[in-house]
């Protein structure tokens, strides 16, 4: 009696039992949502030579490097930046500080300004190189450099977006049991975890939340091991979780397929993963994605440099400036849930809820 398994998961009846959550009283939604950050007059940035130094993976990683690339592409399209006046370099696995320094130095000495380092890994090298080139404008995604006037930090409030992901998860869960899978247990990813936990618990105080990381800090293979992501998510589904939020880079693919096989749902990260080609086969389980708008930050930074108005940039790209948010593609977030989410969002923006950035 050997049968072919059909596409959907019939082979994994989720073990745990549970009923839908008892929800806390959600805040009421405000009348209007906040405005977009990048509004205003058309900026001309055609004079700029823009350099991007990506982290490992570079353009095309379907993750935050790609998001940064999208910001640059938009700048080329909207602000008249010339393609030939841009250069993109990316880091290699296991390279040392001096390679990063050389990369930034190369860009700086060839007259690129602004230069954007994508990823906190550039913090130390940018500190050094920025001091050597005081007239060059640097932007640093996910990191900051103390005391360097020409380095603009482009930081995000991932925890705030993740808070909303937690609320979504709680409302989507049929068993009041959700999970979080992180790629590598580093502070950056822990911010996602912290916000998610807080959000889920805010929405449903009795909710059960699983968490796991694929690898510990230092072993960055956790961001590119989809098979392990799959197993990790399956474990959570077996324990009863039915909505999984992932912050695991290229391993996320495995988490989506685990959700698909286990009749669970998933929440994507960084970009709107429902529309992402690499995970198209599992898009039906993606209820939403926590958006981290690196593209917006990069675009705004370029605009600010062009206008010579860096001070106008937000200190942190948070919910207020739409630096983080959630995606609604796929139509799984109905108007009611959207209203609830906007309510929480307003409270965070107003400061009535402060979201922790550490678990």
């Amino acid at each position, binding site marked *: 009696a050997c049968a072919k398994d059909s596409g959907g998961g019939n082979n994994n009846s989720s073990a745990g039992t549970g009923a839908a959550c008892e929800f806390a009283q959600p805040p009421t939604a405000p009348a209007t949502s906040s405005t977009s950050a990048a509004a205003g007059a058309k900026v001309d940035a055609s004079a700029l030579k823009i350099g991007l130094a990506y982290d490992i993976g570079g353009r095309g990683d379907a993750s935050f490097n790609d998001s940064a690339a999208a910001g640059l592409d938009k700048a080329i399209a909207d602000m008249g930046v010339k393609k030939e006046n841009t250069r993109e370099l990316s880091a290699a696995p296991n390279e040392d*500080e001096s390679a990063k*320094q050389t990369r930034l*130095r190369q860009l700086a000495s060839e007259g690129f300004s602004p230069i954007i380092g994508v990823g906190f890994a550039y913090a130390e090298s940018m500190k050094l190189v920025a001091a050597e080139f005081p007239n060059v404008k640097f932007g640093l995604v996910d*990191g900051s450099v103390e005391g360097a006037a020409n380095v603009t930090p482009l930081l995000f409030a991932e925890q705030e977006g993740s808070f909303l992901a937690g609320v979504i998860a709680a409302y989507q869960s049929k068993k009041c049991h959700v999970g979080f899978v992180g790629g590598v247990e580093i502070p950056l990813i822990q911010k996602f975890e912290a916000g998610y936990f807080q959000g889920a618990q805010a929405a449903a105080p009795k909710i059960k939340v699983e968490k796991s990381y694929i690898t*510990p800090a*230092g072993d960055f293979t956790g961001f590119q091991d989809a098979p392990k992501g799959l197993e990790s998510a399956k474990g959570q589904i077996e324990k009863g979780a039915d909505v999984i939020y992932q912050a695991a880079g290229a391993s996320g693919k495995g988490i989506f397929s685990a959700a698909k096989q286990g009749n669970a749902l998933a929440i994507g990260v960084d970009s709107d993963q429902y529309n992402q080609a690499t995970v198209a086969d599992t898009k039906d389980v993606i209820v939403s994605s926590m958006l981290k708008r690196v593209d917006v930050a990069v675009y705004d930074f370029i605009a600010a440099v062009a206008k010579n108005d860096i001070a106008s940039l937000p200190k942190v790209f948070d919910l207020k400036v739409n630096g983080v948010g959630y995606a609604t593609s796929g139509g799984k977030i109905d108007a009611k849930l959207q209203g609830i989410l906007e309510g929480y969002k307003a409270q965070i923006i107003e400061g009535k809820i402060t979201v922790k950035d550490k678990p």
Partner: protein
Amino acid sequence: MGHLRGKLLPPALAIVFSMLLCGAALVISGANPLSAFGAMVTQVGKGTTFVDIINSTGIYYIAALAVAIGFQMNLFNIGVEGQYRVAAVVAAVVGGSIALPPGIHTLVIIIVAALAGAAWAAIPAILKVTRGVNEVISTIMMNGLAIGLSAYLIRRDVFGELRGNNIRTAEIPESGWMPGISFGGGGTMFGFIFVAVALGVGYWVMMNRTRFGFELRASGESSTAASAGGVNAKKMVLVSMLLSGAIAGLISLPELLGRDHTFSLNFTAGIGFSGIAIALLGRNHPGGIAFGALLWAFLDKSGLALDNVGVPREIVTIMQGSIVLSVVVAYEVVRRFELASEQRRVGRELGTVGGAA
């Protein structure tokens, strides 16, 4: 003269061969190999690249020495990778938490690093000596555990502190640093490079001039003959593994003492594996290793220039792989060639008149 030719010709042949190979790959992909190689060569003079190459050479040199000590007695220490990681984090934690006068502070950090590396190597060594556990397996496993340990030690509730999105150990105070030689815009050469050179000299002297080196080589060549000659095989396994681990412990110190002053998520991994390739490339000889390390460092650092001319940087890895392979093949080809010519020479000289040596 023939002696020297036998030593220098093969690497030269190998480099030429690898360049041809990579050149062909570049041509196929539509790039211009000449501009690619040109960019790599001119990169040496740019910015801090030259000094970076020297610094990197020193680091690779130490790593390859650590590997070579094991190799000398047929111990395959794949664990250098884990040993230097553990040593780096322990040295950073200790260095950042003590206050001592300059010099002494640095020395203490160096000693701690060596001890930590040796301690991590001691586990597979003891398992091998007492339980006969194959060191290839145990060191592979220890490499994994080393990442776990370092991740644990830099947890915020252990010894770590948060720096933006990074996490790191407390910064080592300036008294623990090792000053380098500054070339202004050309960068700063790590002071630890001199230690690396001293290690190389020490390695040569030890291998060729001391009883310990003799026993090490004898064990590597024939463990049975060595034990009949009074060499205690177990002791040699233990000592050479500890020594290898101690030297491995120093790998990260040039960066730790000369630049980073802390252990963070930006830790440079993978040097231990490069060390294996370089030790083999240099045939476990201190001079050969220096050459291999320099070549490796040059390819690494100058390879960064390839991005600027639109050539995939992966060509560097291909070149490293093909150089390792073609160097050894070239040695073999040259050896066979010389053997054949020697045979012809003997044949001519002795003719058919018998003369067994």
